[in-house]
């Protein structure tokens, strides 16, 4: 997957500056800046009420921003009405016209744009082919399955060759199996036509597997914009760390300064060490995030404490064997619960860990991420 870096300023294809939206005094979107490059598959990730859908609807022109500007391809479209924006949207409910056949649905935008009849027909059949719905052109939406409707909605939104395609939780109505297939199709189609896609989703796995970059929204603000890998490995705060995959967070207190600075954690009963230089104040509370698969585990003799940085002693309180991986729940002496995942090719010692065993968990410096928020 392309590792597209945000390069702000004029070069961005879609450029959003200081966008705010208020609904009767409540900020639904608060001062968002966002740059998206041409050909990106961008995901806006966030919980319900985070403002992600409102942001998408403002790009579509279905909501009017309270302030700020939106530019596409160098052109300011903030005041452009929805019907003349070079942007199309695929709705969560698909919003197919129930009284029109599949062909008529897909061709609707072309009829509004007064395309030549022959050209429009050619475009419709091209799109039917793209979404593999060639035999269904004459059907009505209620004669289609959920997945087929989703594909018709995609074809309809692509018909006018928009510069940016907006997708509002397009897969949320599909069951898990179908959703994974559809994700792959969506990525394939996006690669084939090269149109910039912006998708809203609350499903972090979906965002991680599809997107070239992800923008995480929380409480009306855009918190972090990064590639899936960066987001997973360098989350900006505890909310994102917990939102994108599972994570263990150890709280710590900074003491001292300069070279002698240490972080003491009540959770582990030991010091926490991380890589790199950090500008921390004496007495500051910080958090260290470690992914469950980055934790190491080994059995420990009775009464022996694990006294070294990045180590903690505890007991195994739950084991969930899933075949390829095994989940452990470990309760540390401090009472904190820690999740640990071990993949199938574990070593001898790890394989012998049983429920109720005394264990020592540890992690390497490079596996830990320091969070100050």
């Amino acid at each position, binding site marked *: 997957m392309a590792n597209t870096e945000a390069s702000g300023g004029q070069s961005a294809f879609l450029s959003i500056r200081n966008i705010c939206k208020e609904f009767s005094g409540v900020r639904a979107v608060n001062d968002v800046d966002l740059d998206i490059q041409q050909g990106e598959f961008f995901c806006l990730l966030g919980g319900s009420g985070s403002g992600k859908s409102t942001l998408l609807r403002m790009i579509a022109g*279905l909501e009017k921003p309270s302030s700020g500007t939106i530019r596409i391809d160098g052109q300011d479209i903030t005041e452009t009405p929805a019907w003349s924006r070079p942007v199309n949207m695929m*709705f969560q*409910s698909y919003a197919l*016209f129930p009284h029109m056949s599949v062909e008529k649905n897909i061709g609707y935008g072309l009829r509004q744009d007064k395309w030549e009849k022959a050209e429009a027909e050619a475009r419709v059949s091209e799109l039917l082919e793209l979404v593999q719905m060639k035999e269904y052109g004459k059907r009505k*939406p209620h004669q289609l399955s959920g997945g087929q409707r989703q594909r018709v909605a995609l074809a309809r939104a692509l018909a006018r060759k928009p510069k940016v395609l907006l997708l509002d939780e397009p897969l949320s109505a599909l069951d898990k199996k179908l959703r994974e297939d559809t994700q792959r199709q969506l990525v394939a189609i996006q690669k084939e036509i090269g149109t910039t896609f912006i998708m809203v989703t609350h499903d972090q796995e979906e965002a991680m597997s599809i997107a070239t970059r992800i923008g995480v929204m929380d409480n009306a603000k855009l918190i972090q914009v990064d590639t899936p890998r960066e987001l997973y490995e360098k989350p900006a705060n505890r909310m994102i760390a917990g939102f994108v995959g599972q994570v263990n967070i150890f709280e710590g207190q900074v003491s001292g300064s300069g070279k002698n600075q240490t972080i003491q954690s009540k959770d582990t009963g030991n010091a926490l060490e991380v890589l790199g230089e950090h500008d921390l104040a004496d007495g500051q509370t910080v958090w260290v995030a470690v992914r469950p698969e980055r934790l190491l585990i080994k059995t420990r003799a009775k009464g022996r404490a694990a006294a070294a940085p990045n180590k903690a002693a505890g007991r195994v309180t739950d084991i969930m064997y899933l075949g390829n991986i095994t989940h452990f729940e470990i309760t540390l002496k401090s009472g904190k619960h820690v999740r640990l995942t071990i993949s199938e090719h574990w070593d001898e010692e790890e394989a012998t860990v049983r429920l109720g065993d005394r264990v020592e968990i540890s992690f390497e410096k490079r596996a830990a991420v320091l969070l100050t928020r």
Partner: protein
Amino acid sequence: MGKRHPLILLTAAFGYAILYVPIFIMMIYSFNASRLVTVWGGWSTRWYGELFQNGQIGDAAWVSLVVAFGAAVVGTVFGTLIGYALARIGRFRGRLLLSGMATAPIVMPEVVTGLSLLLLFISMENLIGWPAGRGLTTVIIAHGTFCMAYVAVIIQGRLSDFDTSIEEAAMDLGARQPWIFFQVTLPVIMPAIIAGWLLSFTLSFDDLVIASFVNGPGSSTLPMVIFSKVRLGLTPEINALATIMVAVVAVGVIGANLLARRQVKTQKRLQKS
């Protein structure tokens, strides 16, 4: 579903009997060969034959059909507009009052509606010279007003569970109002509109009181003719006529219900999958 208590069945049977036994008896007596309404003289379709030869009843039936058709059209057009406006106007102070006022004619005593419309027509004639006298036009307008209220309720109800994202989708695909309304909204709510039309037709066809107030020479509707005939004494002809009217009304009501139900089903199927 569990076993029903026999008392519930009995209550239901009793209720339906009260509703339908009189109509049923009337229908049977319309096939009575005897001239005396209350004495059974064997089966016959004689009164239907005589009915069709009665010019006065034929004229009145024609008037009633024309009025019902016209009133249904007037009521449906304006009722749809009111229903759409009420459903889309958004929330504001006095919204409930406004929607209550739109549907008030449903609960208003017909005598009041009839009288007020008569007064309106007379003052309009005095002021602007239209409508000139009472006749078909005034009956159609009068019936149209109360039909409008019923249609407004039906349309408003239909639009309350309408997925507005299809209108947004139309706008997103380059359409503007009022084309969105005609290309997308109207076709989708069409079954509700037709149901409203059928109901209006039936209601207008039935009405006696309002028509009595605002009619003029040559615009006596069927219910008016029946009523005036009944006052002179019952004839088996009237039974036959009433039976036909029941049939016409039943077709209208059942049609309206079927349409409404089909629409709900399609909607549910769309939402479910």
